[in-house]
């Protein structure tokens, strides 16, 4: 039985810059936790699964809630909420896969608070924003006391609910390259309920055609099928450079199963990976044409 109690005691730290936030994290080490929207962290604290001495909130750092396109890339600021994704005109066009994802994310009340970056940093294997962003080829700009570095999103996750942020490091920006022409993106979330539910399996596909029906490029990412969100490299290899047909898609969907290492219900999840990868590829093909 887990009791949900009032929040435990902590010191509330509200820095004015990202640099200041990162200094506090570096100085206080494991005693400090960074909070963006708080929708994952506050319930953990109420259950005493997290009891930070210092809660470092980004709410008072101005100018972090942006979503924009700049130099041919999508840029999402660390405090942009899921609702910001849902309502952003920049997202609605070329990055519609992220808008579709935002609509199957939790509930309206949560979408208004939760941030994209927080969803990634919480690093749930089922994190809805992770697989579509991996499929888009997203990278993260990290900044910390030792300076900045950029890593591909797919290398960010190190296990269930763990990420590769070092001491004092934080995610300063999410970037994704602009999709090429003739690209279609699809995220299919398989869950019992339509809202307030985790994905049993999530499949994200971003597929680019060469102008005809030949697959020029494809990225496939799976959620909730392994300790971290993963790319289905074998499936991508099976499609790249080949003409899209029902048979080719079925073959790729079968190959996607090798990327899954489910922590629970392995037979069911593997079967669903195959079914949903085929479905997502077919839908992405239609959008890309």
């Amino acid at each position, binding site marked *: 039985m887990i009791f949900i109690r009032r*929040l435990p005691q902590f010191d509330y730290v509200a820095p004015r810059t990202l640099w200041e936030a990162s200094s506090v994290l570096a100085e206080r080490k494991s005693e400090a936790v960074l909070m963006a929207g708080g929708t994952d962290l506050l*319930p953990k604290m109420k259950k005493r699964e997290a009891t930070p001495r210092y809660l470092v909130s980004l709410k008072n750092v101005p100018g972090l809630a942006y979503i924009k396109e700049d130099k041919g890339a999508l840029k999402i600021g660390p405090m942009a909420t899921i609702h910001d994704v849902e309502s952003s005109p920049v997202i609605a066009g070329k990055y519609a896969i992220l808008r579709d994802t935002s609509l199957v994310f939790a*509930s309206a009340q949560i979408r*208004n608070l939760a941030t994209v970056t927080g969803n990634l940093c919480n690093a749930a294997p089922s994190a809805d924003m992770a697989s579509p962003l991996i499929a888009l080829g997203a990278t993260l700009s990290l900044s910390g006391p030792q300076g900045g570095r950029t890593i591909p999103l797919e290398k960010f996750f190190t296990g269930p609910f763990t990420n590769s942020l070092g001491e004092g490091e934080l995610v300063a920006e999410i970037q994704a390259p602009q999709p090429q022409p003739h690209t279609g993106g699809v995220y299919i979330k398989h869950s019992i309920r339509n809202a307030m539910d985790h994905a049993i399996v999530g499949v994200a596909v971003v597929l680019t055609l060469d102008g005809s029906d030949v697959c020029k490029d494809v990225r496939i990412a799976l959620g909730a099928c392994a300790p971290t969100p993963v790319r289905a490299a074998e499936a991508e290899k099976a499609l790249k450079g080949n003409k899209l047909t029902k048979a080719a898609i079925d073959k790729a969907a079968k190959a996607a199963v090798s990327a899954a290492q489910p922590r629970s219900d392995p037979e069911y999840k593997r079967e669903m990976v195959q079914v949903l990868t085929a479905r997502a590829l077919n839908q992405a093909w239609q959008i890309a044409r």
Partner: protein
Amino acid sequence: MKQTITLTVNGDEFQLAVDPRRTLLEVLREELHLTGAKKNCNEGECGACTVIMDGKAVSSCLVLAVQARGKKIETIEGLARNGKLHPLQEAFVKHGGLQCGFCTPGMIMSAKALLDKNPRPTEDEIKTAIAGNLCRCTGYVKILESIKAVVDGKG
């Protein structure tokens, strides 16, 4: 250490000294005695604590009061004006959109946040807006009917 914050709740400004670990929900209920927003699951799953913050529906159990500093908060208590119920409240009464009533304040605040932005939502848009509000009595049909009645001007 307590921090001083200013909240505008239902149009009235309040200056409060709050402990940083108090949620907006706790401050509304325990300091301002506005008990319409309900403390139920307390982890953002049920929607019973829904209030509108700067025009957006939020789970007030997941907002620290110190983070609501300077924000405009609307709760169910602010809906009726001069003894006259808000059209959504009227419709819930008229169309039987409630049974035990526990989810009702949150349900109505979610519906209000939707209608404030989009006065003519489709049935799907209404369902999406209240998808984070659990009701264990009604089966949602009459709730949906109540909200649709307001949309159709038959509140």
